[in-house]
């Protein structure tokens, strides 16, 4: 750090059109997100996002002498090809896994860029007169690589859990909070060391430790908390991009990083609120492991069981049916036949609406995409706070594949682990039809649902898709 201040001759002067081009690219990304305020404007927003990305890439290629154009073209073709094929083939039910996989790639790319900048800093214009990396850049690189590595390994675990390669049950190491704290502090220690001496050992150690802590942070988090985890990793991938933007002095990366970082943070907040859980308790993990023990006693209570014909008859006579889909619908792939049922009911003059709880599914907005895929018009689909008051006027609430999000215990039973969580007031409908595979299983929170044993509830015990198919047959 004792080098004389000779910055002027090493930091290359960037022409202003380049700065403006990156700024425009950043603005395009803002507009891409802005477009998502309504489905009508969203498609245009997506196109503007693509334009922004093109501007950023072309500007970069135009302002650096390219020693390896063919290799770069090949890398883009291979990566782009894989991306396009995956995007085309992926099933909408598997969207959470795909997003987790994409997050891991952003994280890894950040680590690679950080490592490349460390090995060849002069290419990035971040060296001082003596050839050492600028002090502030060292901190930015250290942070960027650390966040990128955490994003990578955390997302890989999230992917494995969502994809079913790994059990959704939380894995609880003894003293895990202390281990995490120790590893976290060690990372900061090595970032300090790297800032102090630019030592390669510090750099690679902090990278390795960050990979480890990403892994440790996600394994104790259970399946029910996945919507929070996936939003959180979304946020991390943004902060990683922002940190790299600081290193490279690149406006497009900084704006994007800030956007994505805020986006993920807000989604995490919305998900936590919808589960009435604090962010800290989600991160600490272990939800769904301890509570599961307390629920076995309630299984033998009397309940009413109905057939597909009963359900069809009831709904045909109704004026208003509200459908409440959950993750079970997605697993059974029942969304298409469900829409068919809705169409038949509408033909009979029944008003059909869909009610979506924010944490129905494995990621924010998952149910909306599945219903849209099945051609359910989006103006028939409503969020919790917009439709909850309507259950009182509904003749039938048709619950399919959802459980905890309809549990009235969340409103009344203070001892319930889901107490305080906002739920859909399905029990206020004249009749509740509850599609469920069997009476044995409980929801992800591991609690029994009071709703099953109510007088106005009729249980439809079968595979969701089969049951709805039979109802469709009975309606036709």
């Amino acid at each position, binding site marked *: 750090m004792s080098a004389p201040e000779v910055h002027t001759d090493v930091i290359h002067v960037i022409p202003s059109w380049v700065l403006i081009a990156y700024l425009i690219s950043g603005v395009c990304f803002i507009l891409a*997100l802005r477009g*998502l*305020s309504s*489905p009508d404007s*969203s498609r245009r*927003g997506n196109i503007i*996002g*693509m334009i*922004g*990305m093109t501007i950023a890439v072309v500007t*970069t*290629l135009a302002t650096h002498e390219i020693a*390896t154009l063919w*290799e*770069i073209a090949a*890398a883009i073709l291979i*990566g782009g090809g*894989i*991306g396009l094929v995956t*995007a*085309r083939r992926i099933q909408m039910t598997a*969207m959470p896994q*795909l997003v987790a996989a994409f997050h891991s*790639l*952003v994280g*890894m*790319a950040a680590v*690679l*860029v950080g*490592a*490349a900048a460390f090995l*060849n800093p002069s*290419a*990035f214009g971040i060296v001082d007169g003596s050839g050492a990396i600028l002090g502030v850049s060292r901190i930015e690189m250290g942070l960027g690589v650390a966040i990128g590595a955490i994003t990578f390994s955390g997302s890989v675990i999230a992917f494995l859990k969502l994809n079913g390669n790994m059990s959704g049950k939380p894995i609880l190491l003894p003293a895990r909070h202390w281990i995490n704290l120790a590893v976290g502090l060690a990372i900061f220690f090595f970032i300090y060391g790297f800032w102090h001496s630019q030592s390669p050992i510090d750099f690679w150690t902090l990278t390795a430790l960050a990979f480890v802590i990403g892994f440790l942070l996600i394994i104790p988090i259970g399946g029910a908390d996945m919507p929070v985890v996936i939003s959180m990793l979304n946020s991390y*991938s*943004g902060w*990683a991009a*922002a940190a*790299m*933007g600081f290193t*490279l002095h*690149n406006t497009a*990366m900084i704006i*994007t*990083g*800030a*956007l*994505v970082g805020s*986006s*993920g943070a*807000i*989604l995490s907040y919305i998900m936590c609120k919808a589960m009435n859980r604090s962010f800290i308790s989600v991160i600490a993990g272990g939800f769904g492991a301890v509570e599961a023990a307390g629920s076995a006693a309630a299984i033998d209570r009397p309940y009413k069981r109905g057939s597909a014909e009963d359900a069809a008859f009831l709904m045909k006579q109704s004026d208003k049916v509200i459908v409440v889909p959950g993750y079970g619908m997605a697993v059974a792939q029942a969304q298409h036949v469900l829409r068919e049922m809705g169409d038949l009911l509408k033909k009979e003059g029944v008003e059909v609406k869909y009610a*979506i709880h924010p944490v129905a599914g494995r*990621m*924010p*907005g998952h149910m*909306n995409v599945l219903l*849209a895929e099945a051609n359910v018009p*989006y*103006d028939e689909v409503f969020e919790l706070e917009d439709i909850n008051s309507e259950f009182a006027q509904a003749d039938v609430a048709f619950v399919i594949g959802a459980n905890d999000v309809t549990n009235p215990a969340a409103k009344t039973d203070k001892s319930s682990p889901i107490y305080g969580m906002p739920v859909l007031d399905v029990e206020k409908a004249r009749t509740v039809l509850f599609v469920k595979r069997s009476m044995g299983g409980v929801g992800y929170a591991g609690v029994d649902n009071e709703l099953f044993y109510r007088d106005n509830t009729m249980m439809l015990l079968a595979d969701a898709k089969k049951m709805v198919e039979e109802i469709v047959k009975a309606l036709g």
Partner: protein
Amino acid sequence: MDFISILSIFVLACFVGYYVVWSVTPALHTPLMSVTNAISSVIVVGALIAAASSGSVQSKWLGLIGVALASVNIFGGFAVTYRMLAMYKKKER
């Protein structure tokens, strides 16, 4: 650009992000995640710089792998968002 100007851009962009994201309709939260995924791959800029320069062989290869990974995300992210958004339809009246 000095550190303070970069920091200013970052802080202001966080505020822009905050307000823009709150205005996103909950029905589009999944496309929001996939499109944020695609745009955060603007990190490809860094990978391109590394891949394009001839200074260090390791750095070049790290850059090339980075370009490939980010490209998966850019093309995949925008394409899957496009596919999802095309599904959202209004009621036919």
